[in-house]
């Protein structure tokens, strides 16, 4: 059930996008945040062999099955999180980066993030004025069960606030911002710990950027709450 091969032909000098038929799992081990259960991670490996040549490329990732939902609570204005259907009491740490000279070793990430887990935290918020954190950071958040709230790079430096007043329209090159955002999403999107993308620090980005981010990061209708799916959509799944 968990091994599948597909034959395909790819035209010369071209790129194609390929979607495997879904792999079925019966009661898989789930990934849970720190304090709620195990952080079970499966090894996913994708390989491509070319006829007459052999192995052409391979890719691997530690993947956790989990469903993260969050909504704004109308009574308090706070954001409520559920993981695998269970409400989570969020205990978070604010994060800028591990080191101001960007000496970001894997060992350092492991130590820093394990420390957050040892403090009984279950979330780290990556502030918009810092970094889009690195895959090694996310790997250890996967391993130790720290949900990640990742902000894009919008702060008081580019929203018309501050003294002197900053540029109210974000970074000068909006296309560059979106290019970086899209590439960052592709870099990090498979991590179990990645819980929420946020436009910026305590505010929304300029309208065009915000609209593009919301549009690009919108959950595909097939992955909305399963109860809302039509029979035909379930069949497609």
């Amino acid at each position, binding site marked *: 059930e968990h091994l599948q091969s597909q034959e395909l032909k790819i035209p*010369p000098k071209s790129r194609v996008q390929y979607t495997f038929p879904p792999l079925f799992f019966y009661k898989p081990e789930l990934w849970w945040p720190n304090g709620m259960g195990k952080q079970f991670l499966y*090894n996913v*490996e994708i390989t*491509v062999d070319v*006829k007459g040549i052999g192995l052409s490329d391979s890719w691997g990732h530690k993947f956790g099955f989990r469903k993260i939902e969050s909504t704004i609570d109308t009574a308090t204005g706070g954001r409520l999180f559920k993981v695998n259907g269970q409400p989570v009491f969020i205990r978070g740490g604010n994060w800028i980066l591990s080191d101001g000279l960007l*000496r970001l070793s894997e060992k350092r990430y492991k130590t820093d993030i394990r420390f957050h887990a040892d403090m009984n935290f279950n979330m780290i918020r990556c502030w918009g004025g810092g970094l889009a954190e690195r895959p090694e950071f996310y790997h250890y958040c996967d391993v130790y069960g720290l949900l990640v709230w990742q902000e894009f790079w919008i702060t008081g430096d580019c929203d018309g606030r501050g003294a002197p007043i900053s540029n109210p329209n974000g970074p000068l090159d909006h296309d560059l911002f979106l290019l970086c955002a899209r590439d960052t999403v592709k870099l990090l999107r*498979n991590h179990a710990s990645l819980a929420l993308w946020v436009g910026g620090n305590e505010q929304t980005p300029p309208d065009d950027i915000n609209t593009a981010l919301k549009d690009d990061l919108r959950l595909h209708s097939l992955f909305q709450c399963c109860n809302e799916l039509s029979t035909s959509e379930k069949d497609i799944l």
Partner: protein
Amino acid sequence: APIGKTKLDAGWLAARSTDVQLTGVQLTTTHPPSSPPSPPWMEAAVPGTVLGTLLKNKLVPDPFYGLKNETIIDIADSGREYYTFWFFTTFSCSPSGNQHVDLQFRAINYSAEVYLNGHKKVLPEGMFRRHFVDITDILSPDGKNLLAVIVHPPDHPGRIPPEGGQGGDHEIGKDVAAQYVEGWDWMAPIRDRNTGIWDEVSVSITGPVKIIDPHLVSSFFDNFKRVYLHSTAELENKSSWLANCSLTIQVTAELEENICLI
């Protein structure tokens, strides 16, 4: 050569660009820096920042010790050229006829030009983007390759007002870069604004077909009893002929070290 990625995280040298009179072509053909390095070249911190390299060579005091940061010249006063640095390394790579090689930078702050064996490639601005350079056709036939990268600081490094303040004069916010570097209520300004090759550099060898950015998503039914893993990937055929491929996905659970359940 085996398929896969090799990190280039050792043996890097660096020099301030204004101290180097050679061009990138010369550095990567006839006049590479010597190793061990002699001034203006020094051992570099890659991945890392220019300030990290200067600290590694004890050319600046540790900015996070006492108030030593105050003694390091800020980019607003020094000019961007002062923190514009060359980085240099060598690597071996001998792909076979059907193999292709990418040079990958997972992040650079803020823009750069790359020279490999005398060939120039431009890496555009943006702190949070990956760069992939197909170097298959410019690798050295003898397998020994010379790589030089000149890294430019953010376009708008800004100036820190005497009273400090949130994000200095906010100029850094005009770029797509980390903004804490102009200082904040909890942080002193970073003098080089984190200029550098700040994340992983690697050389990746593939056959004719390369896997790009797979996407894994799960969907859940019947109270997590029935679960599906959905996977999508881009595939690039770099060859000039139709590639007949076998694409495989395998999911395993590690029961004990080196014992897996398929």
